[in-house]
């Protein structure tokens, strides 16, 4: 994982939940969640998983990249007792949100999970914004925090404490499980989703989930919207050729 910071006036005004389209000239243009934005600067966190991101990792300070954005909607600001649940790279936009909310909310709790210690992101930064004892970390292999999935401590928290809003971002299978848990307890939820993107502005239909365009109607969706697309959520999406493929 590497964090890249660059100057862009428009994206520096982004709100937590929004994304940008990053152009690596000659290679590709990819959607990336905004990690932080202020003072004419914007940051993104990128895992090297394909040609574009691997190439991005080789770039040095001073290199030029192309940017379109910020795009999409953003998390609503809840000032009560909030719980953020992040999985893997999904923690990035939630860190941005946590920083924005930490001085405004009554209570901020965070549950973060990853496969292994190296993929548990921004733990130090999160400790800075979460109140004491309100950051729980989990890893599947037990190399840091509790050895389990986020759903385990999440279930205990939801049963033990009252929350006014739950925010989540991460692998869609995880998001689906969290949606099922909040639905069961009739709790409000905002989830940031992702899909393959081309235009990023709501025209081409590549990023649809049900009738919603993730790039324009989302990427943040509330419980009522998630209910409408629950047959697809965590199950299938459109591939590059527009056919339906399993997640």
């Amino acid at each position, binding site marked *: 994982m590497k964090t890249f910071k660059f100057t862009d006036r428009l994206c520096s005004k982004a709100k937590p939940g929004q994304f940008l389209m990053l152009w690596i000239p000659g290679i590709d243009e990819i959607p990336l969640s905004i990690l932080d934005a202020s003072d004419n600067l914007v940051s993104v966190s990128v895992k090297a998983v394909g040609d574009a991101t691997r190439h991005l990792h080789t770039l040095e300070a001073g290199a030029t990249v192309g940017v379109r954005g910020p795009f999409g909607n953003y998390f609503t600001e809840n000032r009560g007792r909030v719980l953020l649940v992040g999985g893997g790279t999904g923690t990035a936009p939630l860190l941005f949100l946590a920083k924005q909310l930490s001085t405004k909310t009554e209570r901020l709790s965070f549950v973060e999970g990853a496969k292994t210690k190296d993929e548990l992101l921004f733990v130090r930064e999160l400790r800075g914004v979460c109140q004491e004892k309100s950051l729980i970390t989990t890893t599947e292999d037990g190399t840091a925090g509790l050895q389990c999935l986020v759903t385990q401590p999440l279930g205990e928290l939801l049963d033990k404490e009252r929350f006014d809003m739950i925010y989540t971002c991460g692998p869609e299978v995880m998001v689906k499980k969290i949606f099922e848990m909040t639905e069961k307890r009739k709790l409000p939820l905002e989830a940031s989703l992702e899909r393959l993107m081309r235009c990023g502005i709501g025209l081409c239909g590549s990023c649809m989930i049900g009738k919603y365009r993730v790039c324009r109607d989302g990427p943040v969706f509330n419980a009522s919207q998630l209910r409408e697309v629950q047959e697809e959520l965590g199950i299938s999406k459109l591939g590059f050729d*527009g056919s339906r493929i399993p997640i």
Partner: protein
Amino acid sequence: MVSNPLSIGFAGLELANPTILASGILGYSSESLSRVAKGGAGAVVTKSIGIDARPGYSNPTIVQAEAGLINAMGLPNPGIDVYAEEIKFSKTVLRVPIIVSVFGYSAEEYAMVAKKAAEAGAEAVELNVSCPHVKQTGAEIGQSPKFLKEVVQLVKASINKPLIVKLSPNVADITVLAQAAVEAGADALTAVNTLKAMAIDTETMQPILSNVRGGLSGAAVKPVALRCVYDIAEQSEVPIIGCGGVSDWRDAVEFMLAGASAVQIGTAVADNTDVFQAVTKGVETYLRKKNYGSVKDIVGLAHRK
């Protein structure tokens, strides 16, 4: 009973209003087409479908230009065999006609895809002829009267549904292509597809689109598309669907006065998927103010001497 002033029929199609979703916009799934239909579209045109699945070009596939959009998606589509299922399902949820856009690299491919689309339930087929001909690289089928005729003739012989040909504006005289399509059996023409265009990034000094060249759409092309409709209407009685830069009721009226029986809306859908409703309402008010009982009455009026 007062008849619907906005209803219009042409080429065997009956529409409740003269606004149609253009091809390439939210056209992969029945859910997205259904959303657009609920936004007021009188009919929808699907994404262009071919014989084989195509992943399309890598990004960047669009550039946001001054008064429009330049796109080079590369015809990503799941292929007609997979998409036929989507067409069948769409018929159960859509309340408006579904027009399937078809492309190919030879007359045989066009005909095969068109046939399958019609069998799956397409109310009409629209041919996307802004494609290179497999036998002659560099030439688009829509730029060659000879190849265009060959394609239209074979498709016409292969389906029992209305056949619409979407013409390319990237030609010296569009009336020549229009005539070729009509002589070959086209039931209607859509004028026009996108204008060939590109963008270059001054920082990296290279073209932005991964495909280098793309098609310009949106407000920037309206005057050109409008002139194309006018030119074709001057020469021919064939029904025309205007396409290019329509975003409000006034644009739609201009196209109809030029000779279009209906208009397609594409680029403008991004900002508002309910644009069809807004355009239709505006046209309705215009008709009332101008004292016309039906939208049919204003088609081609700009040609009056």
